[in-house]
């Protein structure tokens, strides 16, 4: 007994507490027998602690079942005590929980539900408010269930998530979301652009090649017989009969009402996309903000949420186990690295920072070279198109037409693997490396598109110089680009098509043969080369890039969202088929939570980037004088003030007020104040959390002290 008392006081002294006494239960642990050879009479510390209210849900396991955590000895002497415990537990949990949220077995929940129903009846149908609350909750749940059932492919997504992990599922979920966006955009475009066009009479045909104006002449195609290769060429490059079709901007007649709806459709589509993306990213943001700084809880997360319970198949499970082992070892190693880094000497620090600087310079150089290549390719295309060799062979012509797209795709293929090779050399931890790789790849993808647009802008506006010879008369380069909006739309159309073709080619020509042939290869080489994973980050960035292209192009090519809907639909089924036939479950380097937060953010970035060229064209570049619904205006936007002036006076005043500074400045001030308030609130919550944590620690020490006193007192009483 003295050993007991000294042990407990010792344990109380050290902050690591009373592990040994707690562990003294039935169950073969050899070292315990050495410490505790005798069975203590009276209630033990563990049984006292088991009776605490906080362990209530743990204890009760259902009628007729032993409370969880009981000892064999306690059962022998106190079948009554366990029954008393279960009854007490039932009384404790009187809060009106819905039955299915209680962590009890089915029978217990059924009993709880029946007793709850009886109580409700006994109290005379409770209070009005409680009833209404229950009804409201049930109807909300039903509505949510119906909405979920409306979403297509829900079952497929669940199956994918179960077999390949949450990261892959997030890719397909994003694809489905983008499909919805594109479908909405195409419907809006059809209603606001196509319908008004035909409502006021069929639009006229292409302008005569004979007519000429101070801004040159524009003849999109020559009527007459077209050979089949030429037809294919026209289809792939958007020229010929496609150029003067509802597909492109130039086709639409200069009717004022059509002009207004055309412009409004662009803004409406942008606004709806923004709202939907924000709605989607808010839930991801909430989850990520809830998690405190990752460095603080990385180990617990890695261990507790490491296992994906949906994995099945021995091979996949072993693969995942190996990955987890590797990750844990890497993480422990990194802790060592971090500890060593903290004690790094000045010389070592200088060395590692110079290495990092060099590598970053290398990355910048590579990116610069890539961008220059894209810029050069776009400019060179026009020159190449003039040479007679190219003009005679349609295949070469097609190749030259697609030169910018080929260059961009090539750059996007080659550079990301180089980034992946460079990153380990920088001496950062693995998680930071992944962030850096992602950031660089995102930058590469979106910037190559920006460079393409920049070179096009250069061509259209003669480098921004409105006094240059080519641009003086009409404000844009009318000799090379008589209808520059259509040309812009064509470039985006070509990018979309080429993206689809490369996707198909990669799947059919690389992934399937690799799976087939490497399945026949013997041994380790076959397994290494044959196991393909679904690279979630790369695929998602590809999706975002494709969507940004469509957003840029949809003002100049109103049917582009419709084409993109078809393309994404095809992509969904293609990727799903590839996934199930050739891929194995992906590693855990990309978590679902990061995906849910990071990817909508990049999507927003893409939307912002796509808004710039569109807004610039609307406000600053004079529209073509020979094509489109805005011909003859000084700028595309000029149509709107004209239409506003035809509205009643109050409406005019209100709209002008919205655009004035008297509205914008107070709005800005109020937003800043709200933001400052939210930041202050968040900080105070953080302080409250640390304060509460400290309180918990103190309370536990109190609890242990009291429980030990209780045990000491009762055993003293028993001994008497």
């Amino acid at each position: 007994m003295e050993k007991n008392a000294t042990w407990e006081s010792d344990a109380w002294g050290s902050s690591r507490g009373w592990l040994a006494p707690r562990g003294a239960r039935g169950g073969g642990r050899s070292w315990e027998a050495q410490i505790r050879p005798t069975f203590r009479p009276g209630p033990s510390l563990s049984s006292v602690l088991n009776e605490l209210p906080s362990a209530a849900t743990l204890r009760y396991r259902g009628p007729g079942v032993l409370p969880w955590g009981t000892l064999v000895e306690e059962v022998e002497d106190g079948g009554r005590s366990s029954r008393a415990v279960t009854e007490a537990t039932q009384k404790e949990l009187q809060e009106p929980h819905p039955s299915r949220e209680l962590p009890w077995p089915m029978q217990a929940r059924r009993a709880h539900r029946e007793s709850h129903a009886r109580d409700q009846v006994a109290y005379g149908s409770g209070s009005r408010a409680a009833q209404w609350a229950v009804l409201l909750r049930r109807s909300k749940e039903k509505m949510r269930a119906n909405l979920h059932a409306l979403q297509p492919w829900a079952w497929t997504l669940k199956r994918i998530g179960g077999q390949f992990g949450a990261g892959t599922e997030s890719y397909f979920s994003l694809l489905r979301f983008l499909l919805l966006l594109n479908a909405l955009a195409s419907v809006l475009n059809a209603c606001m652009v196509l319908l008004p066009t035909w409502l006021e009479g069929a639009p006229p045909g292409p302008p005569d090649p004979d007519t000429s104006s101070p801004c040159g002449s524009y003849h999109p195609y020559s009527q007459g017989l077209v050979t089949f290769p030429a037809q294919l060429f026209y289809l792939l490059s958007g020229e010929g009969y496609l150029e003067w079709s509802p597909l492109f901007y130039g086709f639409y007649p200069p009717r004022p009402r059509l002009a207004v709806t055309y412009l409004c459709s662009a803004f409406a589509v942008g606004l709806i996309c923004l709202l939907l993306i924000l709605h989607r990213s808010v839930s991801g943001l909430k989850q990520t903000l809830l998690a405190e700084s990752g460095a603080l809880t990385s180990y617990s997360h890695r261990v507790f949420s490491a296992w994906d319970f949906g994995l099945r198949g021995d091979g996949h499970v072993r693969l995942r186990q190996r990955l987890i082992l590797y990750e844990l070892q890497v993480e422990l190693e990194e802790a060592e690295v971090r500890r060593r880094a903290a004690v790094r000497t000045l010389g070592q620090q200088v060395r590692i920072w110079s290495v990092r600087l060099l590598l970053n310079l290398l990355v910048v150089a590579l990116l610069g070279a890539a961008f220059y290549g894209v810029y050069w390719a776009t400019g060179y295309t026009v020159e190449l198109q003039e040479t007679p060799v190219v003009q005679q062979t349609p295949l070469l012509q097609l190749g030259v037409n697609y030169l910018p797209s080929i260059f961009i795709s090539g750059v996007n293929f080659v550079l990301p693997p180089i980034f992946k090779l460079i990153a380990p050399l920088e001496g950062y931890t693995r998680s930071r490396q992944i962030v850096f790789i992602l950031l660089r790849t995102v930058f590469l993808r979106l910037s190559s598109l920006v460079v393409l647009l920049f070179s096009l802008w250069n061509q259209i506006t003669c480098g921004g110089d409105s006094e240059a010879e080519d641009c003086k008369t009409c404000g844009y380069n009318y000799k090379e680009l008589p209808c520059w909006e259509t040309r812009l739309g064509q470039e985006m159309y070509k990018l979309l098509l080429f993206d689809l073709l490369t996707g198909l080619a990669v799947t059919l020509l690389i992934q399937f043969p690799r799976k087939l042939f490497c399945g026949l290869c013997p041994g380790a080489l076959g397994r290494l080369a044959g196991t393909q994973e679904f690279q979630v980050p790369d695929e998602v960035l590809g999706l975002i890039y494709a969507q940004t292209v469509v957003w840029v192009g949809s003002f100049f090519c109103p049917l582009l969202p419709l084409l993109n809907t078809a393309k994404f639909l095809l992509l969904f089924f293609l990727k799903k088929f590839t996934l199930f036939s050739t891929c194995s479950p992906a590693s855990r380097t990309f978590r679902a939570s990061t995906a849910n937060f990071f990817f909508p953010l990049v999507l927003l970035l893409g939307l912002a980037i796509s808004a710039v060229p569109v807004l610039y064209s609307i406000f600053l570049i004079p529209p073509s004088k020979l094509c489109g619904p805005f011909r003859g205006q000084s700028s595309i936007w000029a149509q709107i003030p004209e239409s506003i002036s035809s509205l009643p006076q109050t409406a005019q005043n209100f709209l002008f007020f919205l655009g004035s500074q008297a509205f914008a400045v107070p709005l800005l001030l109020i937003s800043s104040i709200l933001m400052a308030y939210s930041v202050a609130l968040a900080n105070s919550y953080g302080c409250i959390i640390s304060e509460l944590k400290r309180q918990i620690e103190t309370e536990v020490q109190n609890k242990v002290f009291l429980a030990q006193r209780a045990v000491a007192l009762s055993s003293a009483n028993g001994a008497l």
Partner: protein
Amino acid sequence: MGGSGSRLSKELLAEYQDLTFLTKQEILLAHRRFCELLPQEQRSMEESLRAQVSFEQILSLPELKANPFKERICRVFSTAPTRDSLSFEDFLDLLSVFSDTATPDIKSHYAFRIFDFDDDGTLNREDLSRLVNCLTGEGEDTRLSAAEMKQLIDNVSVAGLGLAGPGSGREGWTCGLKPSHSQILEESDIDRDGTINLSEFQHVISRSPDFASSFKIVL
């Protein structure tokens, strides 16, 4: 699907829908899969509700066969007095907790029970080291080394005793206090008692946004 005897009645379906997080389709599918595990004569509706399926049969389901936690899952959800078989309602409980729509509270509660290998209501060092061994594989070459396990779980020893996981039994009694770095207990054990109880576990899990999506089994 078999004869009318093996279909669940409407009232029973409605009751199960109320008491679990499963949809009607999922309950019917679960019943079908459960009946496939039973011998032919027990496949009628009344019999299937009363029948108990042994662990070996449940563990033959492809969803559970390769899961390293399969025995713990079966033990936690079993309400039989001998804790060695599952009834249909236990099976529904299992699927409900692992379903899409179960609340994170319920999931973390049952995850805690599954990880508590010695069923004592807390996660102590041995539970944690057994958990890590399950995660990395039980073979000799797939475990973390003893030093790594110690570093992972905790580095501080108590009053001269070296408490270590099962793999380091050879080390015996190591004395001395070493400062610990951010490891599991350091991160999750708020009250510093050397074990993780239910509320601490739930607190850690609530900050892990991946937990709900990884704690899922779909039939």
